[in-house]
């Protein structure tokens, strides 16, 4: 009862709406709880720290792609080529630094350049996508579909289809190190998601992303440099995919010629289950993160439960489809 009536402001506007919006963010939390319970019933090992850390670590690369895709989707665009960037960026960077004998390109640049080169490659891919989408006014779906094929082809061309094995320790580090008892990659994802959530909520540029996705003409008329923001978002997307590629390379100890292949479907499923709309302007990064966790837990439970190899894909697909339908029913709005 500290009600000290000071300056009379607007008739006390209540805040429940905001709360509701926040609740919608939490829509997947019950699903995660249910999965935790189901997992614990199926196998007590499930709730062990080691297993849960494994689940998180296995989802780190996916979660970075989902982070990238979610921001791009919120800005009202599309990027399918992320799944090729995650392979090409580390492959190209390594090719430039490792010796020819290990399937390098023969340049043998200093090893210290590998990580910067990888990130640079991601950024350049994002910028090139942006160029085609924004300058030529091409559909983002189509541009990035074409890039998906080209980049995968480039990787095969550059490496001759070889897996790259001879990875310098500096490149392996991020995917392997342990910081404060947890894998470094988990920390990195957590920090990047936290930064993303804060940026999209509290930065002018972050709110501009929502405005552009919601109505690009209105955003332009309100003085937002829409093309520049979208371009930056696409570049960040490429950067995050390259970083995911680094983590994956470190975790798996090599760059597979098919690294990332087929991942983009899962990326979209996670983002959409997490409440990000394909129409732009809607959804949160926290929701997208929940989507990633849900998929990771389902995968882990199916493995622990020892589902037959023959049916695992059908069951996994059916669970995803059911989750999508539930996400639709709980959000209560038509999706198209």
């Amino acid at each position, binding site marked *: 009862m500290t009600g000290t009536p000071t300056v009379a402001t607007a008739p006390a506007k209540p805040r429940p709406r905001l709360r509701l919006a926040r609740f919608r963010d939490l829509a997947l939390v019950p699903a995660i709880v249910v999965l935790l319970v189901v997992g614990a019933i199926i196998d007590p090992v499930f709730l062990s720290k080691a297993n849960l850390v494994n689940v998180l670590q296995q989802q780190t690369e996916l979660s970075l792609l989902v982070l990238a895709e979610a921001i791009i989707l919120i800005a009202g665009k599309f990027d399918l080529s992320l799944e090729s960037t995650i392979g090409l960026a580390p492959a190209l960077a390594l090719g430039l630094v490792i010796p020819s004998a290990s399937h390098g390109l023969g340049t043998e640049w200093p090893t210290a350049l590998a990580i910067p080169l990888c990130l640079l490659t991601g950024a350049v891919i994002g910028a090139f996508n942006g160029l085609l989408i924004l300058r030529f006014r091409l559909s983002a779906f189509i541009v990035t579909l074409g890039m998906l094929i080209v980049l995968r082809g480039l990787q095969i061309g550059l490496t001759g289809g070889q897996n790259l094995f001879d990875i310098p320790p500096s490149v392996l580090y991020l995917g392997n190190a342990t910081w404060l008892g947890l894998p470094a990659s988990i920390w990195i994802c957590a920090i990047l998601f936290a930064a993303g959530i804060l940026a999209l909520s509290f930065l002018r540029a972050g709110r501009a992303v929502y405005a552009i996705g919601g109505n690009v003409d209105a955003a332009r008329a309100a003085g937002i440099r829409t093309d520049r923001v979208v371009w930056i978002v696409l570049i960040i997307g490429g950067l995050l995919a390259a970083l995911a590629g680094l983590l994956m390379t470190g975790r798996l100890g090599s760059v597979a010629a098919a690294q990332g292949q087929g991942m983009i479907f899962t990326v979209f499923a996670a983002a959409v289950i997490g409440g990000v709309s394909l129409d732009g302007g809607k959804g949160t990064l926290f929701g997208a993160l929940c989507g990633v966790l849900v998929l990771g837990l389902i995968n882990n439970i199916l493995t622990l439960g020892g589902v037959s*190899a023959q049916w695992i894909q059908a069951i996994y697909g059916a669970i995803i489809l059911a989750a999508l339908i539930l996400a639709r029913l709980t959000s209560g709005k038509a999706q198209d």
Partner: protein
Amino acid sequence: DSSTGSAAGGNSKPPIGVDLPRADSDFWNSYAKYVPQFAGELGINMMPPTNSQNDVAKLVANTQALVSQGAKAIVMAPQDTGAIASTLTTLESKKIPVVTVDTRPDKGKVFMVVRADNRAYGQKACEFLGDKLGGKGKVIEFQGSLSSINGRDRSEAFADCMKSKFPGITVFAEPTEWEGAKAAAALQTRLAQHPDIKGIYMQAGGVFLAPTLQVLKSKGLLVPPTDPKHIFAVSNDGIPQEYESIRKGEIDATVSQPADLYAKYALFYAKAALDGKTFQPGPTDHDSTIVDVGNGNLEDQLAAPLVTKDNVDDKTLWGNQI
């Protein structure tokens, strides 16, 4: 006969077409390197090879293109063995002999199948692990894709052998679709669930080796065979990285799939077919056996040696030659 044939390179010898199955695996890339080399040695007029990128529809299209360009014999390595039945029928009707490498068609006539026995791979891996584990304990197996015949052969043989010879061993068979990331995730999960896993069978070293080593390393399990924590690992393929790991004691064995012999004998039989030679079931002059696999098809089952620390430095292994 077809007048449209434009023989490659103005060579008077009948041209032989080669289709490579994929460009994204170390094993097949080695094969691709050996093919022109042996074509030179055998004096064969080889057309520029096509590549079907692991897609049977492309394989069919490539075959048709090779035929229209005048190929008189064809070497192919269909990764998807059911889907070439019609193509084989067509080629047979055009009297173009076919040699398939690595896989045996489910249906249709070929001149020769050049293949190592994939069931034997699974068998050898099983026996090796069974011995090392003394017939009891837990083993994890990274299966290839269920839709690939080689993956299926290895899985079935491994499972049959374990069941009949080592019933005391529990096998966790993990579906991976030939993806390293899936194998790594499955290994992590299983190790958390069953820390007493003592054996690993990887059906393809090219994709599973590095992820497996990474996971073992992060769990502190990458220790020499003398250490009681050591997990016995058998791989499959025979690429140089596997030999490296065997030398370091990180893994214990691999089955060398003979990329060089695949290339050599595929071309050898294609040439023989054009020269009008025929073959009978029985042992050959190169340490292998030709067997009749039904349908009137013959299969030259090349030797696929198990490589362990003892013979890893053998210079004749293809993985030691590149």
